[in-house]
């Protein structure tokens, strides 16, 4: 644990990996509803098409029921869709780290031997991002 925190700190210090400014559209409600199980992703992280797929699929969200009350769904959905990022052709519902948006922002960790040595999965956002948030 201490080793990979150190690696993340080192990476944060040497590149812009984990020091992204928080999105102004990451509302407290999105943080609460999306951030209970994983870090809440900013609207810009996915295209409108992808957000709609995620929001429509919450009953089986990567193997879990992540449904929210309809009123909440409409409120957070509006923010996520209205401030969505550009459509770069990523698969609709394949996981954050499989997409081009994510890859373009993690060039310094993908294939980086120092990072690979930690054994941290690319799906483990928290390994680096708890230190600074998104």
């Amino acid at each position, binding site marked *: 644990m201490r080793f990979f925190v150190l690696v993340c700190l080192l990476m944060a210090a040497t590149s812009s990996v984990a020091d992204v400014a928080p999105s102004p559209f990451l509302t407290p409600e999105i943080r609460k509803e999306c951030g209970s199980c994983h870090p809440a992703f900013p609207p810009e992280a996915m295209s409108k098409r992808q957000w709609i797929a995620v929001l429509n699929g919450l009953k089986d969200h990567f193997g879990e029921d992540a449904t*929210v009350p309809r009123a909440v769904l409409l409120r957070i959905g509006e923010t996520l869709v209205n401030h969505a990022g550009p459509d770069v052709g990523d698969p609709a519902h394949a996981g954050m780290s499989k997409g081009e948006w994510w890859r373009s922002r993690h060039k310094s960790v993908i294939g980086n031997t120092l990072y690979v040595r930690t054994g941290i999965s690319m799906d483990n956002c928290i390994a680096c991002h708890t230190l600074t948030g998104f």
Partner: protein
Amino acid sequence: MKLTPFVVIGLFILPAVAVADDARQAILDGLAVQARAEPGFTGFSADRGRSLFVTEFKSGKVDTPSCTSCHGTNPALGGRTRAGKDIDPMAVSKTPQRYTDPEKVGKWFERNCDNVLARPCTAKEKGDFITFMMGQ
């Protein structure tokens, strides 16, 4: 009486705990009203709650055969979501705000009973679960 820092802190904490206890009891009372409509109900049971918590049902989603899949087997210790985020302990003694917000309680029973059991929990099961956690 001279107000030491501890007394001052206590003055704030004690009412907060009392309010939380009242809120939790109100939720439990509501569940009891519903449970009485189900056949054979004679009160909530911490033992049944424990069994609900630890049993591997394997009837729900593949990755969540039991509550303990994410919450861990010891309610006094925290758990971890499949995505790696820490979950506060379920035991009331460790997380006093547990089971005090009706909206939160409703949302998570709905999601997680579906995840683990592939069906909604009954009022009796919810009451048993909370009763067990109140003694932990």
